[in-house]
C-alpha cells in the first residue's frame, strides 16, 4: 500500500502542471536546505568548544542539556511556521477499498521523515562523536542521541496538534505564541525550573536506559492523538459542515467617492476581508508597522540614517508589498469572467493602485509616533512614503503582469508559497534595495536632507506621470492576457 501511495506522490510531483515553473523555487529551497545542513554540521562540530567558552566550569554535555529546553521552544516555533502536515489528496482514495487507518499512518509516517527532523542530527552526531573521542563512555552517549531523536519526533507530532488547534481560530498565531510564551516565562520567572528539570531528566535517561520508556510513551501518546484528529478529518463533510455561517452583506457605498473605479474597489475590499489568505495578511500590517521598534530603540541603528529609509519603505509599504505582489493572481479564480466582461483594464488596475496608495498614507500616519526616536526618522519615513506612492506602486503593478500563478483564496496565509514565482523574489530588489541604495549614495555624497529630497522628488515624478505609466502598464497586462488566462486555469 505504501508503495502505491509513494508512486502516486511521485507522479503528482513530476506531472504537476507547474513542475517546470516551480523548479526555481525547489532549487532555491534545496540550496537553503544545504545551507542549514552545513550550518548545523559546523555548530555540531564546534559545539564542545563553544560550550567550553561560554560555560567554562560546566561539563559540555550538561551545559548542552541545560539548553535543550530553549532548543525545543525554538524548534516548535520554527516548525509552526515552516512545517505543514504532508498534503495528500485523499478524496479519490476514500471510496476505494483502502483502510482509512493506512492513509493516516502513511501521512503521519511521512511527516516523521521530513527534512526538519534530520536537521538536528547534523549537529547532534558530530557533537556526540567528539564527546566519545574526548573520553566519554560510548553507551550513555548513544542513549543520549536516541533521546534527542525521540525529542525531535515529539516536537514533530506536538506541532501538528498545535496547528490543528490553531486552524480553528481566527488568530492563527495565537496558540503557538501563548504556549511558547507561557512555557518560557514560567521558566524565566522561576515558577517552575523546566529547563533544569528537563536537563536532569535527560541526564538520568542517559545513565539509565530503561527510562527511555518515558519519552517513548509521550511520543506514542502524541502519535495516537494525531491519528485520532486526522482520522476524524478523513470524511468529506468534516471540513464543510460548520463553515457556512451567515454573512453580513456590507454596502460600502462610500467607495462611490472614487468614481468609476468604485465597483472594483468594493470587490477588492471584500476580497481582502472575506478570504482566509488575504485576511491574515491584514495581521501582517501590525507586524510591518511595528517593525521599526525592533531597530530604533537600539543605539547602533541611530547612526545609520540610510537604514531609516529601509524601515520607512517597509513599514509604510507593507500592504503594498503584501497585496501588490500577487496582483492580478488574487483574481485568478474568476479571471475569465473579468476578461469577458465589459471592463476597462485601466479601471481595474487603478482600483488596486488607489488601495495601495491609500494604505501607504494611512500607515505613514499611524507611524508618526516614530518621531519619538528623532525627527530624522519621521522625515525619512515621509520620503519613503512618497517614494512608495509614486514609484513602488507602479513597479509592483508592472511586476504583476508577469504573474502566472493561481492563488486559492481559501488557504491560510503564513508562509504559504502558493502563487509564488520568480517574480516575487526579483521584485524585492527595485522595491526595497533601490530606494535604500539611492538614499545611501546621496547621503554619503551630500547630506541626509538632500537624500530625502531625492526620494521625494522621484515619488512626485511618479505621481505626475501616473496616467502615462498606467497606460504602459495596462498594455503590458493586455499583452499577457491569454497567457494569464491559461495559467490561472491550471491547478498547481
Amino acid at each position, binding site marked *: 500500500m505504501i508503495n502505491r501511495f509513494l508512486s502516486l506522490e511521485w507522479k503528482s510531483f513530476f506531472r504537476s502542471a507547474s513542475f517546470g515553473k516551480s523548479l526555481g523555487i525547489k532549487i532555491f529551497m534545496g540550496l537553503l536546505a544545504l545551507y542549514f545542513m552545513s550550518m548545523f554540521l559546523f555548530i555540531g562540530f564546534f559545539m564542545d568548544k563553544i560550550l567550553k567558552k561560554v560555560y567554562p566550569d560546566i561539563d559540555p554535555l550538561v551545559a548542552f542539556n541545560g539548553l535543550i529546553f530553549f532548543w525545543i521552544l525554538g524548534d516548535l516555533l520554527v516548525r509552526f511556521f515552516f512545517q505543514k502536515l504532508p498534503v495528500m489528496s485523499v478524496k479519490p482514495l476514500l471510496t476505494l477499498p483502502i483502510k482509512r487507518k493506512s492513509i493516516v499512518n502513511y501521512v503521519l509516517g511521512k511527516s516523521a521523515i521530513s527534512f526538519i527532523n534530520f536537521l538536528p542530527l547534523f549537529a547532534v552526531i558530530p557533537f556526540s562523536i567528539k564527546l566519545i573521542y574526548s573520553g566519554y563512555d560510548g553507551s550513555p552517549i548513544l542513549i543520549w542521541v536516541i533521546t534527542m531523536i525521540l525529542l525531535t519526533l515529539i516536537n514533530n507530532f506536538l506541532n501538528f496538534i498545535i496547528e490543528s488547534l490553531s486552524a480553528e481560530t481566527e488568530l492563527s498565531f495565537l496558540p503557538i505564541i501563548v504556549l511558547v510564551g507561557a512555557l518560557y516565562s514560567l521558566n524565566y520567572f522561576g515558577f517552575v525550573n523546566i529547563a533544569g528539570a528537563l536537563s536532569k531528566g535527560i541526564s538520568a535517561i542517559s545513565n539509565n536506559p530503561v527510562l527511555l520508556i518515558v519519552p517513548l510513551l509521550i511520543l506514542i501518546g502524541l502519535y495516537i492523538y494525531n491519528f485520532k484528529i486526522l482520522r476524524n478529518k478523513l470524511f468529506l463533510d468534516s471540513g464543510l459542515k460548520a*463553515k*457556512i455561517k*451567515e*454573512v*453580513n*452583506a456590507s454596502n460600502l457605498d462610500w467607495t462611490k467617492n472614487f468614481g468609476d473605479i*468604485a*465597483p472594483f474597489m*468594493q*470587490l477588492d475590499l*471584500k*476580497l481582502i476581508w*472575506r*478570504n482566509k489568505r488575504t485576511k491574515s495578511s491584514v495581521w501582517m500590517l501590525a507586524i510591518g508597522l511595528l517593525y521599526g521598534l525592533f531597530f530604533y530603540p537600539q543605539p547602533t541603528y541611530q547612526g545609520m540614517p540610510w537604514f531609516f529609509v529601509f524601515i520607512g519603505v517597509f513599514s509604510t509599504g507593507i500592504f503594498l508589498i503584501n497585496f501588490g505582489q500577487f496582483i492580478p493572481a488574487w483574481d485568478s*479564480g*474568476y*479571471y*475569465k*469572467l473579468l*476578461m*469577458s*466582461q*465589459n*471592463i476597462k483594464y485601466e479601471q481595474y488596475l487603478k482600483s488596486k493602485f488607489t488601495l495601495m496608495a491609500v494604505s501607504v498614507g494611512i500607515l505613514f500616519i499611524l507611524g508618526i509616533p516614530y518621531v519619538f526616536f528623532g525627527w530624522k526618522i519621521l522625515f525619512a519615513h515621509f520620503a519613503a512614503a512618497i517614494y512608495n506612492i509614486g514609484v513602488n506602486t507602479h513597479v509592483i503593478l508592472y511586476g504583476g503582469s508577469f504573474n502566472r500563478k493561481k492563488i486559492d*483564496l*481559501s488557504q491560510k496565509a503564513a508562509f504559504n508559497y502558493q502563487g509564488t514565482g520568480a517574480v516575487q523574489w526579483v521584485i524585492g530588489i527595485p522595491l526595497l534595495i533601490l530606494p535604500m541604495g539611492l538614499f545611501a549614495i546621496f547621503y554619503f555624497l551630500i547630506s541626509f536632507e538632500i537624500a530625502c529630497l531625492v526620494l521625494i522628488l522621484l515619488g512626485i515624478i511618479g505621481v505626475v506621470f501616473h496616467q502615462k505609466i498606467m497606460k504602459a502598464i495596462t498594455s503590458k497586462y493586455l499583452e499577457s492576457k*491569454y497567457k494569464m*488566462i*491559461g495559467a490561472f*486555469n491550471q491547478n498547481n
Partner: protein
Amino acid sequence: MISTSNLSKTYSGNQVLNIESLEIPRGQSFGLVGNNGAGKTTYFSLLLDLIQPTTGFIKSNDIQVNKSEAWKPFTAAFIDESFLIGYLTPEEYFYFIGELRGQNKADVDKLVGQFEDFFHGEILGQKKYLRDLSKGNQKKAGIVAALIGNPEVIILDEPFANLDPTTQIRLKEIIKGLTENRDVTVLISSHDLLHITDVCERIVVLDKGELVKDLVTSAATLKELESHFAN
C-alpha cells in the same frame, strides 16, 4: 450576428477545432452538440476571446473579437464556475455584474426579480457566499447573471448539467422567452439531446473539432441526432 471564417485552434500540433465557415443570424437560438473533446467549449472560449485562434477569426456584429473589445458590452456568458466570484453573495455578484454593464441596483433587482421561480427560493436572501452554494445553485446564479444588462449575445456552456429536473424545465422556458422577439442570439451547448432540440431552432454537431452536421430543428431532428451518436 456571428460569423466564423477559417477558424482553427491547434495545441502543440493537435488540432482541436477547425470550422471553415459558420454564420449565426441575429435572434437565432443556436445549439452545439458533440461528444467530449468535440470543441464546444473551445469554440465558446474563442468567441469570448479567452484563447487565441491559430488561424481565422470570429466576427460578432462585424467586430472581430480578438482585435477589438467592442463586442463586450453586448455579450454575456456563463461557461463554468470560474465565472463566479466565490466570496460574494449572489446579490452582490448580480450588482457587480450590473455595474459593469451600466445597470443600477433597481434595474438589477427588477431583472433578478423575474427569476424568483427559477431560483426556487435558494439564491436570494440566503446570506451565503457563492462558494458555499451547491453546484446547481451556483449554476442558477451564473446563468441569471449572464442575462443582466440586456445582452444581445448570450453564451451558455452546458446550462442543463447539474440542474434539478424542475429547474431544467424552467430554464428551457427562459431560453425560449429570450429569443421570442428575435433580438437576442442565444448560443448553448449540451449533452442532453432532448433539451437542446426542444429549445434550439438550429443544431450544429461537432466531432473532433469538425462541423459534421448543421440541422434546422424539426420533428425528425432528435431521431437523427440519436442515430448519429449511436454510431
